[in-house]
């Protein structure tokens, strides 16, 4: 047998023998870089996917209907923070749900990263971080688009901290919701799942109306209070247009932290279930 004569080869090559944390950081960075490179190759598709819907929302509801006299100019400044919130949440959800369904379901592309010397949670965390990054970029681009379509958008330097905080939290919550959907829903059911989850999520997130104004429609107010996107929308209003009645900023932050804990746990459980048999 050749086994006894072949050189014994038991250790990783010297170049790869770095301290564990450094290897992990390098590995995590490379996985993140992979996603950035792939998105960079397809930048036009990314921007179209992210921006087309908010653009038409702004144009029709903010500009067209106001111009025709059906809505007041105030509605545009109420709608804009809501649309930024919606863009943040929806972009983040899509950025984890769709790739995870595909990668665990049929392309199996994620396997090479699951075999990297990274803990499973770090591979999942990279997905969340990258989805959140996409969502933040999409939200940022909403401002120049808003200015282009509406002429001006509400902005307050004093609200900047809350704006950034709510956007970050909202993007992470969205990414965790996406990971939960992407890992619990079987690939064959993803279309129906999206129809059942996405449409209600879109219209119960206090995007197109301020939440306190729903007091007269109590049941709907309760329903919307269960949607995490509501707290992103209301937090954005607290930051940008505090004159409109809104849920206090600190309540929004707390509600988003709670959502993050719930969906973060669910997402991680789902990810682990799919990653290891």
């Amino acid at each position: 047998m050749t086994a006894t004569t072949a050189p014994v080869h038991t250790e990783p090559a010297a170049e790869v023998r770095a301290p564990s944390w450094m290897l992990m950081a390098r590995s995590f960075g490379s996985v993140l870089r992979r996603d950035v490179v792939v998105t960079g190759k397809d930048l036009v598709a990314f921007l179209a996917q992210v921006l087309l819907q908010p653009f038409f929302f702004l144009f029709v509801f903010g500009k067209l209907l106001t111009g025709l006299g059906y809505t007041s100019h105030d509605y545009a400044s109420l709608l804009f923070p809501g649309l930024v919130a919606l863009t943040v949440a929806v972009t983040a959800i899509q950025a984890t749900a769709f790739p995870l369904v595909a990668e665990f379901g049929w392309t199996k592309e994620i396997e090479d990263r699951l075999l990297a010397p990274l803990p499973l949670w770090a591979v999942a965390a990279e997905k969340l971080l990258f989805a959140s990054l996409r969502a933040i970029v999409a939200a940022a681009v909403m401002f120049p688009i808003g200015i282009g379509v509406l002429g001006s958008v509400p902005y307050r330097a004093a609200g900047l901290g809350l704006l950034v905080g709510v956007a970050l939290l909202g993007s992470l919550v969205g990414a965790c919701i996406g990971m939960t959907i992407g890992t619990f829903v079987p690939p064959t059911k993803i279309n129906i799942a999206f129809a059942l989850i996405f449409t209600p999520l879109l219209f119960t997130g206090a995007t197109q109306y301020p939440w306190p104004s729903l007091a007269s429609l109590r049941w709907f107010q309760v329903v919307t209070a269960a949607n995490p996107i509501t707290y992103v929308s209301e937090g954005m209003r607290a930051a940008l247009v505090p004159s409109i009645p809104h849920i206090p900023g600190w309540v929004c932050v707390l509600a988003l932290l709670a959502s993050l804990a719930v969906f973060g746990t669910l997402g991680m459980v789902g990810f682990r279930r799919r990653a290891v048999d």
Partner: protein
Amino acid sequence: MVDSAINLTAVEVRQLVKRYPKAQTDAVDRLSFGVVHGEIFGLLGPNGAGKSTTIGVLTTRVRPTAGQALIAGVDVVATPRTVRRLLGVVPQRNNLDRSLSVRQNLLFHAAYHGVPKALRTRRADALLEQFALTDRANDKPEYFSGGQNQRMMIARALMHDPTVLFLDEPTTGLDPAARLFVWDRIRELRETGVTIVLTTHDMDEAAALADRVGIVDSGRLLALDSPAALVRGLAAGATLDVAVEPAGESGTARLLDRLGDLAGVQRCEQVGIAGAVRTIRLHITGDAGALVARVAAAIGDVGGRLIGVEIRESSLEDVFIELTGRRLR
């Protein structure tokens, strides 16, 4: 943690059990074997025998129900991250990154494993060359043939210089030329000292590549040795098929009696009829060539007419049949 005795073993599986949720039986049932550094070890068995599950456990993707699995002395369940640095995996199903080019697939894989930039560029160039992928290096693997995908996956798995390379059904679905190309590369790898564990349901592949073969069925290890020793271990080492025209009604029965009594013939049976010609298979021990003359004489003694003779050496397939009573495919 790693004593020298264990360290001689590249892969060690001890009493491994895996039962999937809701399954009635164990996919892997108290499996134990060891793989020595630098050898090519083959797990041979039919589909569903538990080969891929075993590879799954060894590559940290399947959690065992019971038992232990070690790579170079390192426990795969306790320290999966350390183990992943030691192993390269070529899965049964294509899992290449379709958003990246061939070269990027290799480079990113190495980067995930922390291989420094200069080194990974050098390795990628060398492996692209070795696996005849240099002229496709900048293409995406979307429209690649099965053979190209397989070559790419093997090259990718080697980018971080693994100690043990796992190949799950490496040539299933490949055309003969692509299969020979992959076989040659696998043999080349042995020369570099990489330990190779491959699964296959193809006995020719196991016989052609493996230093040792473990035969598995229904999650259990039935036999483990070199292909030659497994075949030698069979009660009959070869078969001799004789085509005969027997004399008269009872000719066949008399022939079977007479041939079965010959020294060196373990048993014999009729396996075919074509017109007046009967094919009789003799399971024999010892040298088949030396027996032919005595067989011919014996046939003459009972008035039969010898028409043809075919000698066939036993193969791993016969080993499998003897162990399970079934054919491999």
